[in-house]
């Protein structure tokens, strides 16, 4: 069973649809027992960091998520919440990835919205992804590159497009909205 973490954040249905298209069943839940025993956990999200973290704390999920041992994939806000800290309303986050989330300086249009390509370093998640493949981004905050960064995207400045550490994976872009290239990444994650 694939579990998608339920919390007040945007595109949860899109993620569910994408997982279903790949032939997997999934459940959207904030039930701790279900999350602990799921084969894979996806932590999606479009929204605001402090509201999301408050909800996770209320549900006790702030303690549970970093302690999960199965493969976990954060998407967009999910990725940012897996870092130490976000400048978005100065929010303490889950601390899985040792980096901080900052707001883009307004040197170009913010949010970074649209399709962009990656500079892939060593990545398990991005197996089979080519330099010319593009992914769909919508975000105004970004995770600074760190030792867990496995792909960089350049927009205004280089930022962590993908983070990987032990059983934790995270993408700033939306694989569920990134056509075939995005499906490949979801498939990679579900097959890890």
């Amino acid at each position, binding site marked *: 069973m694939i579990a998608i973490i339920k919390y007040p954040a945007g595109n949860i249905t899109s993620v569910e*649809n994408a997982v279903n298209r790949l032939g997997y069943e999934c459940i959207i839940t904030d039930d701790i027992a279900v999350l602990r025993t799921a084969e894979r956990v996806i932590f999606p999200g479009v929204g605001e960091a402090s509201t999301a973290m408050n909800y996770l704390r209320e549900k006790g999920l702030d303690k549970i998520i970093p302690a999960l041992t199965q493969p976990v994939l954060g998407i967009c806000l999910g990725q940012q919440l897996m870092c130490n800290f976000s400048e978005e309303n100065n929010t303490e986050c889950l601390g899985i990835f040792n980096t901080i989330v900052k707001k883009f300086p307004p040197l170009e249009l913010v949010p970074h919205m*649209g*399709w*962009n390509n990656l500079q892939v370093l060593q990545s398990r998640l991005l197996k089979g992804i080519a330099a010319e493949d593009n992914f*769909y981004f919508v975000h105004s905050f970004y995770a600074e590159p760190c030792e867990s960064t496995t792909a960089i995207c350049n927009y205004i400045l280089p930022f962590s497009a993908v983070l990987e550490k032990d059983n934790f994976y995270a993408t700033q872009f939306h694989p569920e*909205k990134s056509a075939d290239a995005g*499906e490949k990444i979801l498939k990679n994650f579900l097959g890890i």
Partner: protein
Amino acid sequence: MLKKRIIPCLDIKDGRTVKGINFIDIKDAGDPIELAKKYIVEGADELVFLDITATNEKRKTLAELVVKIAKEINIPFTVGGGINTVEDAATIIKAGADKISVNSSAVKNPVLIKEIAGRFGSQAVVVAVDTKFENNDWYVYVNGGKIATGITTIEWVKQAEQLGAGEILLTSMNNDGTKQGFAIEITNTVSSAINIPVIASGGAGTKEHFKTLFENTKATGALAASIFHFGEIPIPVLKQYLKEQNIQIR
């Protein structure tokens, strides 16, 4: 590099696409999902579904269609037409649309932009603006271009941005349907005046028109309908051409 977006628009009436469709290799060109999938395979970067018969009775049908589209579509899509209240927007977004587009309803009630952005984020709100050049300026029209508002386009897009619009979809009524090219001047003026993405619409007739648009304005996307529906410029041909012209294209 961030890519310029090529966005086909599908007009929907009673759950079916309208306008002649020239694709011979799909079974039912009136089926929005089949047509959308065809465009995705061809490389469309986003899709816009515009419900041209949206009435209160029909909105339920639209929401049901959006649920089906969302199950099948793996790129971002916008739904517009007849979204008058934040509840209308909520119905469509909960059905699975990534963005909703508002036009006349936002001009009549600008707070609608703020309400939708406040609930779903600015990235979910596309403000569609129909603009017409007359008496030496560009003015906003509503109700499908039938009613003049007397509001200048610049004034309106700045207000829309302030209220939380995530993108502007700018259609020049002077250019729409002419196939003589996009309205470069107003697109340039608008895209330079605001800090949110502008999608240009109206007037596309050749591949060169897209090149001219992207080279002369800050538009981050181009929307077209008939040239794609009638197969006049297949999306792969257009994208290949733009790549050869060194325009950043997926």
